[in-house]
């Protein structure tokens, strides 16, 4: 077991700068998710840690060892690939045993470890089969079992669930969480799926355009996004950003006056509010502002409202039995503890509370 530390990693592909000075520390036994849109550099970072890609600049440590110059086989990592990369010419048993065979482990040890890993992944009855005889979900299990069998210092996972159908993904997600909570293997997990990231991670590193923009616990990242990108990328529907005029130390939202956490240089400020963080009323209440209902979408657990406030659009969710129709004016009361203030030009949060 070991932590991972990367320092100032830079990597370009031709003229495209994939990573521009990324530093990250994963503690021993921690589950960290690298989350970001495609092309943000998250997979490149993972491959640099695995040794499959060479960084132009920067260093990588696994535990106490610097591994920057080492080939993948000397890094004592295991990896689960997006398309599984389960060897088609080997049986499930031999696939899981692959890493141990490369280490020239004794036969009894191999048998014991393979059976243990297979049992963990519930594929102990498939050991004699070839990958072509397995479903996608089963191959996925083989790929994870192969990684667990070598008892790696560090487990790297590159979008391991993205090739599974929705239902199976949900099932595997919970299973992975149970499994890795038990084994306490240090894990770095790449995904573009924010729900996956929220559900699995001890900490999420949100990446955008080759940089880590926020690195924190899932609920922190959700409730206190570091900038408009994080607020917009995480959460479905994304966070609302309302552009409001500033008066001294306060922002004005219709008749509401809201205190700002710090001095603002510009004339305007952005208010970030999650759609579920409004209390919604059909009549005027104190501490609320009016908005016109444009669209009502019943989504089952709640109604999703698209609203117009002045020239700005926003989304709010209300209970499914809330009686509302398009064209109606409703009053929104933002929950005071859940407001996020951001600087409109840079998009950065004003202060972390």
């Amino acid at each position, binding site marked *: 077991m070991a932590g991972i530390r990367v320092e100032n990693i830079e990597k370009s592909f031709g003229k495209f700068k994939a990573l521009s000075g990324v530093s990250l520390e994963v503690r021993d036994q921690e589950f960290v998710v690298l989350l970001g849109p495609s092309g943000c550099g998250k997979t490149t970072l993972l491959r640099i840690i695995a040794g499959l890609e060479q960084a132009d600049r920067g260093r990588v440590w696994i535990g106490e060892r610097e591994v920057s110059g080492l080939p993948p086989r000397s890094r004592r990592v295991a990896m689960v690939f997006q398309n599984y990369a389960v060897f088609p010419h080997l049986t499930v048993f031999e696939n899981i045993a*692959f890493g141990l065979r490369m280490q020239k482990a004794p036969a009894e040890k191999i048998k014991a470890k393979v059976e243990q890993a297979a049992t963990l992944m519930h594929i102990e009855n498939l050991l004699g089969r070839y990958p072509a005889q397995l479903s996608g979900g089963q191959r996925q299990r083989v790929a994870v079992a192969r990684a667990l069998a070598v008892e790696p210092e560090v487990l790297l996972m590159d979008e391991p669930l993205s090739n599974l159908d929705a239902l199976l993904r949900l099932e595997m997600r919970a299973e992975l969480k149970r499994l890795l909570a038990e084994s306490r293997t240090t894990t770095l997990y790449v995904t573009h799926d924010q729900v996956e990231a929220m559900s699995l991670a001890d900490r999420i590193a949100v990446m955008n355009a080759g940089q880590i923009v926020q690195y924190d616990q899932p609920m922190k990242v959700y409730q206190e996004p570091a900038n408009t990108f994080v607020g917009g990328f995480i959460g479905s529907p994304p966070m609302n950003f309302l552009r409001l005029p500033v008066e001294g130390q306060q922002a004005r939202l219709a008749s509401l006056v809201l205190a700002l956490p710090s001095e603002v240089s510009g004339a305007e400020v952005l208010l970030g509010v999650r759609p579920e963080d409004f209390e919604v009323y059909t009549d005027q209440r104190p501490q609320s502002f009016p908005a016109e209902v444009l669209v009502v979408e019943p989504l089952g657990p709640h109604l999703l409202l698209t609203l117009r406030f002045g020239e700005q659009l926003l989304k709010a969710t209300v209970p499914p039995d809330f009686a509302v129709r398009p064209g109606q004016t409703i009053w929104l009361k933002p929950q005071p503890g859940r407001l996020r203030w951001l600087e409109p030009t840079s998009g950065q949060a004003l202060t972390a509370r």
Partner: protein
Amino acid sequence: MRSERYIPYVLVLPSVVFLLFLFAWPLLEALLLSVRNSSGWTLEHFQRMAADLYFKDALKYTLLLTLTIVPLQVGLALGMALLLGSIAKGRDLFLYVWTIPLGISDLAAGIVWLAIFTERGYLNSFLQAVGVIQQPQLWLSYETPWMIFLAVVAAEVWRATAIVFVILVAGLQLIPKEYGEAAEVFGATPWQRFWKVTLPLLRPSLQVALILRTILALEVFAVVVALGGRNLPVLAGEAYYWYNAYQNPGVAAAYAVLILGISVAATLLYLRLMRTKQEAVG
């Protein structure tokens, strides 16, 4: 539309007729020719073939040539294909240069190598110029069949390695790079990666290349004729001499059938030895 069901059949018909007319029928005729004479069924042609002075040498040299050329070509081509895989810049240049021999006919290839090995050829001129020999040496004479053998091997390896190379390059490109990467991450050295992952996954391509090259090597003729005439007898050459010089189609057909028999046996052997496990076929 009902009539549309016949369109595929109509479209393949010309090629089927062509193949039947120019391959299946001559094949059948040759088979019949080898086992019949004017009075009916006979093994006379095969007996005459086996008793011929050249037969044992022709069989020996054909098999030896095949056993020498095919492994050399596959080994070389595999090395070249793997090297090409690790070349990033100028990859296409290497690919095209290495496949140039594909465009050269076997007789032309034989003549090119004859120009090198003949008495007043490039090799002797070079050796004389650097002072290794005083007189032009006679390399390709009936007294030195092993020299002719080596010249044929050189010419064939030079000429026909490219086709194996092309098949293996195509095969390597079909292997997703994640398999190699997975092997690397799980501790395989480059050597282990080659033996445990690349080679097994390349097996279908290797099988095709081996079968194709073995059949073609068993039929080797033009290069041998150009370099050694009948001083290095081979089976296909004997078929040619019996048909042309001796005007005996029966024995010529017997040689042809023998080549066919060996080719079929070799192919079956490859298919059996390199069988892709049934379970592994998706």
